[in-house]
């Protein structure tokens, strides 16, 4: 117990240090820096992956509806925060749409700009998640009776239907049909501007803070008595039911919580992209998130976070040079646009082959544990060296 508390402390200090580092980096690096872009995008994907992990990894329900729930979150967030003055321009084909308020604007009028912005965005994100969760509940009623592959197919179908539904012209006054939602409150609105120049950059830090808070809540759920029940369902449904765990209720809980946080992740993605459109929320996005979960380790929260960073970093940044013909070695013209994806696929195959259980398996990254592990390796090496020397002396 004492050791657990100590390692918890170490982890909290580590996360705080990380946040401070991100804050400092944001002030020093140019805002177009690739590192900040990767940090932002991977934070959002980390949240989506952890929410998927809660369902797929901890409850053992193989669902592929993540992109659908993210889409709902992105749209709901966008619809709620477009300033009234801009609505006519955004909903130009639909007479300015039917929603004629913005939560952020409304709260800013009452509470002042700063509090209105923070509270407005948080409330909008929570509503975005809640509506995704509500839809998950309704969809879950019939489809959570399915098992294994059937559930995966049903949720995948649901996500595709949602995507088509949101592009439906008849819903235009609400969703802007197949046109973009834009001009809503986005991450850059958090930067503190003095005299037309950004004094303090906060967009990345705020995003990472929100993601960290969401992941903390998911971790708390996983470590609570309900999370233990989820794991029991994953390990053996029959035994879980025989020990008094109501399967329908607990599966639904996990499904709704997962959808809620996927919705929040969708809202954050909209904030990051500054526009929202149904098109990119394809099943390919779900597969990306699934890959992150698998690479990180099914059943590991820190694994998902770590692999989100690695995955996004590799696909957006570190492997970029493979697409550029100017880096070709003369005579060996293999680098060309698209080659990055070939290498990326091979790397993923290698990871899946050699780390069957992902980077972390079912373990969690623990700073104190990491230190002990390093120490162990070091002492082992020393011991090995000593043993070898002893062997020499004896021989």
């Amino acid at each position, binding site marked *: 117990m004492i050791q657990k508390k100590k390692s918890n402390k170490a982890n909290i200090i580590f996360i705080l240090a990380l946040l401070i580092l991100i804050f400092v980096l944001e002030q020093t690096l140019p805002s177009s820096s690739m590192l900040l872009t990767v940090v932002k995008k991977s934070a959002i994907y980390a949240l989506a992956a952890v929410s998927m992990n809660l369902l797929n990894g901890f409850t053992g329900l193989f669902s592929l509806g993540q992109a659908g729930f993210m889409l709902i979150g992105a749209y709901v967030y966008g619809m709620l925060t477009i300033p009234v003055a801009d609505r006519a321009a955004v909903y130009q084909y639909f007479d300015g749409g039917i929603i004629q308020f913005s939560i952020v604007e409304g709260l800013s009028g009452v509470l002042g700009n700063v509090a209105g912005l923070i509270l407005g965005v948080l409330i909008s994100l929570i509503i975005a998640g809640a509506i995704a969760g509500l839809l998950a509940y309704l969809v879950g009623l019939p489809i959570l009776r399915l098992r294994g592959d059937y559930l995966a197919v049903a949720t995948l179908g649901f996500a595709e239907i949602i995507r088509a539904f949101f592009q439906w012209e008849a819903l235009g006054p609400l969703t802007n049909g197949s046109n973009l939602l834009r001009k809503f409150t986005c991450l850059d609105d958090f930067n503190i501007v003095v005299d037309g120049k950004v004094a303090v950059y906060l967009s990345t830090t705020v995003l990472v803070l929100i993601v960290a808070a969401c992941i903390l*809540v998911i971790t*708390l759920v996983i470590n609570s*008595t309900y999370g233990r029940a989820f*794991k029991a369902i994953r*390990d*053996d449904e*029959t035994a879980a039911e025989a020990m008094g765990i109501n399967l329908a209720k607990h599966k639904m809980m996990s499904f709704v919580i997962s959808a809620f946080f996927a919705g929040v992740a969708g809202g954050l993605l909209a904030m990051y992209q500054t526009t929202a459109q149904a098109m990119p929320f394809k099943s390919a996005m779900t597969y990306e998130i699934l890959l992150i979960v698998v690479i990180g380790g099914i059943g590991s929260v820190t694994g998902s976070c770590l692999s989100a960073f690695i995955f996004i970093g590799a696909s957006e940044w570190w492997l970029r040079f493979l697409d550029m013909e100017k880096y070709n070695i003369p005579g060996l013209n293999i680098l060309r646009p698209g080659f990055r994806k070939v290498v990326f696929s091979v790397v993923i195959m290698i990871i899946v082959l050699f780390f069957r259980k992902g980077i972390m398996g079912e373990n969690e990254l623990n700073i104190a544990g990491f230190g002990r592990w390093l120490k162990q390796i070091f002492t082992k090496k020393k011991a090995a060296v000593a043993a070898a020397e002893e062997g020499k002396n004896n021989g």
Partner: protein
Amino acid sequence: MADNVLRVENVTMQFGGVVAVNNLNMEINKGEIVALIGPNGAGKTTAFNVITGVYAPTNGQVSFCGKTIVRNHPQGKMKKLYQGENATRYTAEYRPEGEADKENPDPYRGTAHVLEPTPDKITALGMARTFQNIRLWKSQTVFDNVLIAKHLRRTSNLFTATFRGNKKEEARQREEVLELLKIVGLEDVKDELSTSLPYGKQRRLEIARALATDPKLLLLDEPAAGMNPQETDELTSFIGEIRDQFQITILLIEHHMNLVMDISDRIYVLDFGKLIASGTPNEIQNNQKVIDAYLGVEEDDA
């Protein structure tokens, strides 16, 4: 009877054209250890699954501590297929003849009441079971396996549990689990993975997990399966101990006759789904029908 714990009445379980359990009647009283025995395929585990809600019976009713928990009659396609007895006994149209039934009034008489609760609801009433093939939660430690079973008796909801509003309850549960592990002798391995335990200890853990749900009736499905004689002896005394310590009633299915004869107060014998005998171990040992069922009867003209 006031101290009746489990009453199984006219239970028939038919799968398609196969009658697995045929008109089974059983009664278990408080504090008893009752064994259900029979040759392979006699329908013992099916009977267990009906009692614990895994299957809804085709016909019949099960009551627990005087309360009817499972009840059904042949419906739909089964109406035609049904080969068992008492087909109309539990339907809405049933009217008893004679005076005998007045003593034991049926609260569902005249209603088409069908009760098919899921296993978790039955466990919540105070009936816990173990499995023939051990079903522990594999990725969890010994301690967590028992702790998860405590989830049933929680008072916290999702919100209070997430934001740790249930610290007191959590601490109490952990203490209780530790206590329970001490009693069953698994305290020293509490942090090991459940599947890394030797077979006998896994059985013990399964029983401990069932006990953690605070049952009044414990159902053990072949607790000594795959055990050597020494382990079986240990288990025999262990079952007696937990009956006395937790003041529970036990129904068990078993093939090890030494164990059955040693600890059972009463025995029910099933063969081809039908109850062929019941009584004390002594009576059963000398029952010709039982001996025939186990050893087979020689046919006259070969």
